């Protein structure tokens, strides 16, 4: 059984580069494969979102396998919004059997945001309970309730955290809770306010969490000043400081993508200088093409070979 490459990279102390791929709104394997081809070689692993924002898309599990077949290492994102513990545990086993080696445990965006707002939300478990469940399955070889598995799943277990959401003072404690539940790597919500992120990292280091879990700072490159304003105003838990919005506005519309990439690269350099940050997670939403340029410009194109 091969284990997670992402895990090996982080354990060897390399600054990891991960990215994200949103599956298409259709049964189109090529859309996933094309995104995979764009990212291949530039990142250590690729997260696949699980019906993000409650919008129906090609399944995360299927997309992960498509990416794996293209030679990439996927991170299966799994939300508790749509599946109860029977389906979650079954999919965890399925993921491992299909050779997936990384899982990111999430609660998921509320269904009211998506294209099926009439859906019944499941939320049988929350993200922390999902982390505990995967950990139990992998390490103790049992499912919830204690029944033994014939073969435990082999998965590197991740979670998300948002250093920018209310109540701010609680966010480090929440990460501690996820670590206590069994999370081994963390990918954060997108960082624009690097000052606030650094404050959060101080709390993380004070609690010694940076030595217990690998932390990857999340970054979403801005495509336009409008996007910056939209995210700042309309997306709960996203903190885009006024100076970033102003900076995006200060360049002509045609050059704003370039400016967004420049900001991303600067943020990555900042992240590299923060003690306890082990990598970057680049979420270029429907803009995977930007990732190779960002990674090259940030001087990270030479990905370590750990196999």
């Amino acid at each position, binding site marked *: 059984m091969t284990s997670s490459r992402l895990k090996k990279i982080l354990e060897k102390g390399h600054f990891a580069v991960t990215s994200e791929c949103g599956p298409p709104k259709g049964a189109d394997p090529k859309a996933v494969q094309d995104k995979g081809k764009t990212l291949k070689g530039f990142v250590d692993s690729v997260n696949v979102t699980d019906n993000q924002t409650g919008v129906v898309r090609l399944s995360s599990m299927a997309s992960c396998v498509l990416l794996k077949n293209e030679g990439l290492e996927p991170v299966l994102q799994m939300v508790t*919004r749509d599946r109860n*513990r029977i389906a979650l545990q079954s999919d965890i086993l399925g993921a491992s059997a299909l050779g997936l080696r990384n899982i990111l445990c999430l*609660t998921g*965006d*509320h269904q*009211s*945001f998506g294209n099926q707002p009439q859906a019944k*939300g499941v*939320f*049988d*478990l*929350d*993200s*922390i*309970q999902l982390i*505990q*469940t995967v950990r139990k399955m992998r390490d103790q070889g049992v499912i*919830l309730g204690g029944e033994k598995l014939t073969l435990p799943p082999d998965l590197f277990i991740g979670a*998300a*955290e*948002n250093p920018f*959401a*209310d*109540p701010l003072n*609680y966010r480090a*404690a*929440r990460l*501690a*809770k996820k670590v*206590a*539940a069994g999370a081994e790597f963390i990918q954060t*919500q997108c960082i624009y306010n690097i000052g606030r992120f650094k404050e959060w990292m101080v709390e993380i280091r004070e609690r010694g969490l940076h030595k217990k879990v690998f932390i990857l700072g999340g970054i979403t490159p801005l495509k336009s000043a409008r996007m910056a304003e939209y995210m700042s105003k309309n997306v*709960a*838990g996203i903190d885009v400081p006024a100076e970033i919005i102003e900076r995006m506005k200060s360049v002509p519309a045609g050059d704003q993508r370039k400016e967004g990439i420049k900001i991303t690269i600067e943020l990555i350099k900042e992240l590299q200088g923060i003690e306890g940050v082990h990598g970057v997670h680049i979420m270029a939403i429907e803009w995977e093409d930007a990732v190779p340029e960002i990674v090259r410009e940030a001087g990270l194109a030479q990905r370590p070979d750990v196999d």
Partner: protein
Amino acid sequence: MIVGDRKPIEEIKEMLAPYKKILLVGCGTCISVCMTGGEKEVGILASELRMISELEKKDWEISETTIQRQCEREYIEPLKEQFEKADVVMSMACGVGIQYMAEVFPEKIVLPAVNTTFYGTNVKEGEWQERCAGCGDCVLDKTLGICPVARCSKGLYNGPCGGTDNGKCEVNKDLDCAWYLIYNRMKEHGKLDMLDEIIPARSWKTSLHGGPRKRVREDAQK
């Protein structure tokens, strides 16, 4: 109390279309206190229906009454004569009353005039809020009296999601984030360390997911 909303008049009209003699029954308990199906609201609906009947030539005969509780047999039984005279009964109680009246008088069809919504309280004039989900396994000791099952949009047991925005829920800016309230309450009481405790996956068997619930107290049985 149990809170409900009266159904839209169009839906009520459609339900009553096949009938002539209609008995409207209000309930004097929760649904009356939340200003949905008490004596006053029965009177309003009766007048509305009489007006519709006149304008649209429906030929409805509307009679009305309100009893103390539609969830108890002793209050329903005295309606025997009125039930017998009616083609159909329309209840303005919660879902419990609507069903129980039909159980007491199985020969009659009882229609709902109310959508039962939640267990809640009247927080201020004209505003009711949900407080309890009746899930059968109370954790209010662990959350200092604020229910994450009924009051967090995702029913989270282990702290706020990433969508809390200035203390409001990402689902609706008019809703308080339950975990923000819990956090502040723990802070006020100097008990923030309570947040470190992981609440493991719970059993939903005590909720509806174990099948419909019933409670038996043998010592109270004859």
